[in-house]
């Protein structure tokens, strides 16, 4: 099971969350002008990345807030957690896939160094990016 650090609630079991698929897929700006092909792309086509994938999660049985996650779809390592609306973080060349650390204590909030482009906005106070411990499978 994934151990996911909710930006608001701290580390919780995957069973508290709901998966929302690929992140950063905006609603078309001019829906009337889309061709059938473009509608098909918006409705049915999503990236299916093997590797680092930006996706949305909802803490449905906790704070009920959405957030984004960068996760490796092969190892399932959680590489970054960042707010909805923030751009996808670009890991440092030297420190790939590590934007911070999460305490193992169940209800702790997160601490740790933040990746350079992880924005901290609407998801709560001063704790911007959180990651679960590496290989956070239970």
């Amino acid at each position, binding site marked *: 099971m994934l151990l996911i650090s909710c930006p608001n609630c701290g580390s919780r079991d995957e069973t508290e969350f709901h998966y929302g698929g690929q992140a950063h897929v905006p609603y078309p700006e001019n829906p009337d002008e889309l061709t059938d092909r473009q509608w098909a792309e918006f*409705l049915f*086509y999503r990236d*299916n990345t*093997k590797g680092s994938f930006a996706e949305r999660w909802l803490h449905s049985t906790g704070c009920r807030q959405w957030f984004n996650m960068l996760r490796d*779809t092969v190892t399932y390592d959680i590489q970054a957690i960042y707010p909805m609306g923030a751009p996808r973080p670009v890991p440092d060349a030297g420190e790939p896939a590590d934007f911070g650390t999460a305490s193992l204590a169940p209800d702790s909030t997160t601490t740790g160094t933040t990746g350079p482009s992880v924005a901290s906005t609407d998801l709560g106070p001063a704790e911007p990016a959180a990651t679960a411990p590496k290989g956070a499978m*239970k």
Partner: protein
Amino acid sequence: MAEKLPEHPDFLWHNPDPKPSYDAIIVGGGGHGLATAYFLAKNHGMTNIAVLEKGWLAGGNMARNTTIIRSNYLWDESAAMYEHALKLWETLPEELEYDFLFSQRGVMNLAHTLGDVRESMRRVGANQLNGVDAEWLDPKQVKELCPILNISDNIRYPVMGATYQPRAGIAKHDHVAWAFARKCDELGVDIIQNCEVTGFVKDGNRVTGVKTTRGTINTEKVGLCAAGHSSVLAEMAGFRLPIQSHPLQALVSELHEPVHPTVVMSNHVHVYVSQAHKGELVMGAGVDSYNGYGQRGSFHVIEHQMAAAVELFPIFARAHVLRTWGGVVDTTLDASPIVGTTPVENMFVNCGWGTGGFKGTPSAGYTFAHTIATGTPHELNAPFALERFETGALIDEHGAAAVAH
């Protein structure tokens, strides 16, 4: 001891080195790739072909599925496709000269709510109109067919009836793969293992070769049969597929005496159970929610399906989990496969069978071979074209087809 061991049996296929060029290359040596190669050789006389497999033969979903075979799908297009497959399952053991233990012990799809009951009866009606054997069973008839099922009112989701397809059943998946592989080999098809496709050679928009870990191989045509990795290959070829790859898990218990005479599936409490020929209870359920190529999933999914199984079959409470595993399944949003042409000339794709493509193996091979050989789809797979996501002519088997395995 050693001298008492029997002789090693004959190998079922050879392990040739790749030739410099083929008339067609099939990417992926699972059930679908092997069946496609078999029908290309047998029905279309194309024997200068190769199946390229990155690992070992049928080590992907083919070796990981729970082998349920049925054809009681709701929509006409699906019923035609899966019933064609079921009829082939009935004749293939003789045709391939290999008894892969296709056991037509029937499949039951349980109904637990009034909504389920209505949907199920509708599906039985639709199946009968399409010439697919289907019956509606009330709870007493369910109990008669499968005495170990708990039909009491005292469970959270009591059994309110079931659909039943008598001709449905299970088969031994690895033997199915070996049966196809042996025939392919006899017909002159090269089966090349440990050969990963890493890219494509194109002349303009036409594919002319594949790059592999064992060198570049020229080819007239390419057929993709890579299941969970279809998106990865499409990306190499320069087009997109409306596929999401998810982990799908299953489990088996230790061996038991025969207690379970049929196959029971429940969409609502989400578990399906059969008993393998050797005696293991085989169980599965739905995909893990997240995208994943890791061939493993989260344990709560296993826990959940076992809880459902014990509620339906109290006798299983003392059984133990022996093994759990996962595959990577290629799901589409309408829960129907994609079999047809691609935006790249001379490249064809068979994918999107998701959680339920074992049963479709014979028809996937049959129709995909036709598509590759002639350049146009067979009437059975024409509705399953990639274009349907653009035209809106979806074949929505979500829910409609009960659990999609």
